[in-house]
């Protein structure tokens, strides 16, 4: 196993920047991957490095990027959350539904959307923590349930006609920076503090490292697991907010397959799929890397079918280079 994948080391690396530390940080490999891919894309497409395209990529990344935050928490505990895309869709659909069909003020709808996300997350968490059921199957079931509920509620139609100010969340800007990008950065910063600077964060890592030992040391493992899935529900709901702003409608079909993109971002960022090791900043790098791949391959005008193949190969390569020993 590589010995540069620890949280504490990264903590130190944060303190003083020097090349050695960066190279030995678990972020090094994802970062190198990001840089290499960016340079390749820059060669292949002249527009790639324009400020507007960079903002464009970051804005495109924001939704999966935010989903990947919750996913990181869950994966760090050794779990997985396949329901994030569906929960996002349901939360956005219900929020839009309340605004449009029930004529509630926008903020009520948004709050309700967040509530829905958190509730479904806690539902997952309760099943995993108290029900002791495997996360993969619980969240798979929740995925089906959330999709079904969203479609039932909306009758399959997208719900449009929401207050126009909500578009600010999706397409607004502060200076030249799109609002979704700012939201994403803020969420990552909060997640970083939570994971690296609070007892809760240490417990998340501890559970992923050795759940039994953590429990024996007095970590409230069930509570932490519950919370972690709740956080994933919350970030799904935040993603829904931005999605709703971008689409200006509630889309019960949105986000199919986003869970896989979020997982890919987390793993590309160097987090161990078995839990216990990984950094939230790695996830951000992983999400951006995925976004650049999508954007760059589009910019290069590559056949969409071929894009899937290339993307798959690059992910394999990135994971291969960054794998542990």
């Amino acid at each position, binding site marked *: 196993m590589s010995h540069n994948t*620890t949280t504490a080391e990264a903590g130190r690396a944060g303190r003083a920047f020097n090349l050695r530390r960066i190279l030995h940080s678990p972020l090094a490999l994802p970062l190198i991957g990001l840089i290499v891919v960016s340079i390749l894309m820059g060669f292949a497409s002249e527009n790639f490095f324009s400020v507007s395209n960079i903002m464009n990529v970051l804005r495109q990344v924001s939704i999966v990027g935010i989903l990947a935050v919750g996913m990181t928490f869950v994966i760090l505990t050794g779990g997985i959350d396949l329901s994030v895309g569906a929960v996002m869709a349901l939360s956005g659909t219900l929020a839009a539904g309340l605004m449009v069909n029930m004529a509630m003020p926008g903020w009520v709808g948004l709050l309700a959307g967040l509530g829905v996300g958190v509730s479904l997350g806690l539902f997952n968490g309760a099943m995993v923590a108290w029900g002791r059921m495997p996360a993969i199957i619980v969240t798979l079931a929740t995925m089906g349930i959330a999709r079904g509920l969203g479609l039932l509620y909306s009758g399959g139609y997208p719900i449009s006609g929401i207050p126009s100010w909500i578009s600010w969340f999706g397409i607004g800007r502060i200076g030249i920076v799109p609002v979704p990008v700012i939201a994403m950065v803020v969420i990552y910063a909060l997640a970083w503090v939570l994971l690296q600077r609070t007892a809760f964060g240490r*417990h998340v890592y501890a559970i992923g490292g*050795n759940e039994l030992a953590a429990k024996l*040391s007095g970590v409230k493992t069930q509570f932490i697991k519950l919370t972690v899935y709740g956080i994933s529900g919350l970030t799904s709901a935040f993603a829904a907010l931005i999605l709703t702003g971008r689409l200006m409608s509630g889309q019960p079909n949105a986000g199919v397959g986003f869970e896989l993109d979020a997982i890919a971002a987390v793993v590309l960022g160097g987090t161990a799929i078995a839990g216990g090791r990984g950094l939230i900043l790695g996830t951000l790098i992983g999400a951006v890397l995925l976004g650049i791949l999508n954007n760059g391959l589009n910019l290069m005008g590559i056949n969409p079918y071929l894009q899937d193949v290339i993307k798959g190969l690059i992910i394999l390569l990135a994971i291969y280079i960054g794998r542990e020993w």
Partner: protein
Amino acid sequence: MLQLSGIKKRFGTIQVLHGVDLEVNAGEVHALLGENGAGKSTLMKILTGILQPSAGSILIEGQERQFANYDEAIAAGIGIVFQEFSLIPYLDAVENMFLARELRTRFGLLDRKAMRKRAEDILARLEVDVPLDVPIRKLSVAEQQFVEIAKALSLNARILVLDEPTATLTPSEVEHLFKVMRELRRQGVAIIFISHHLEEIFEICDRITVLRDGEYVGDCLVSETDNDRLVEMMVGRRIENSFPEKPSIPQDAPVLLNCQAVQLRRGGPVSDFVLREGEILGFAGLVGSGRTETALALLGAYPAAKCALQVEGEDIRFREPADALARGIGLLPESRKEQGLITSFSILQNISINNYGKYRRGHWFLDLQKERADTETAMQQVRVKAQGPMDRVDTLSGGNQQKVVIARWLNHQMKVLIFDEPTRGIDVGAKAEIYQLMRAFTAQGYAIIMISSELPEVIGMSDRVCVFRQGGIVATVEGTAITSEDIMTHATTGRVRHVA
């Protein structure tokens, strides 16, 4: 101070404790003795709230207490160092010590400075130097053990349970630990100490309680007993001199394994040794001196920089242990839980795991009857204490688990066996049996490499001893030169051969 009475415990249909009593006073080191599977660890888990007793009572300072979980026991001033490690591999020492009891700043964030300071203080008290910024899994077993102890100390417990803390320590480290224990005793802490090393009991303990098969046998003052009497209390019979006679090995015995050069890390020392038919070659050295890594490198399980081997005169480099197995070389790994057992398997499946070549029917299929019969024989040979071969191994006591892993190699026609800490956590009776077994193997023409941190064992069993220091062999001693002074000198000051 602490009084356990009539503690009973059953797992399903198995009665493990049949009404055990234990009384510990403040300011005393109390030894808890018993064979493997006697129920020591189980009793301690009940005391610390990790398991619930089926019957019986726990009195602390005269008050009846019941702990629903470990947290409640901690709150009542009880701390424990578990027999099996309970550290988080990817967190560092400080984070591990304060897990679930983190110090916080006013803003609710981690107070990392304060925790580090306190960790340094506690480790300084233990007089050990443990790297604090490195994930725990990078530390040697001994260092991890000290972190465990430090973790328990950081609780400021009034009752401290140490379940076989010395099994992984060298003599000087054990001395360290005893110093700390004496200091704690002076402060009035009640310590329960579990160990299979009787000489340690005599050195540090004040009183002794002995268990046998989950029954309370009796207690006595250390000053009023002696080695033989203790052994008899534990085992119910006398144990003869535990080390078997060393046979004389002819100088021209064929060389089974000729390790011409093994280099663990690039730029590190290069070692060589030979292993002859019928001999036991000891690997001695301080913990972390590279014995385990060398052994794993031979089998192809550790990516050594260099490993030039001859097996029966033929140049070979193993890519994985399966290749070594095919050439008759097997390993009893050092950590049974992580490296030895497949815990979800039954005893039978654990023993036969690499033996299927023998249990074939119609070339492809398993011969389940033969597998079972052979397993039962093997279990009897090493005396595994269990209800039957279909029991899951994770319900066995530590010592019995070790025997299961040893039994795995009984059915093989092996040439070379590498035993890494074969008696770690094994009771005296079983130890003698394992020693007999090793000699029985060599009498059949096998050769054994025995890695051990217990000097008496190394001296008592080895025909020759390679002493390790800093990743390489610094000396090989033979015959009467095998003395503890000699080995310790080499292990602590021997010259390490580096190559350009």
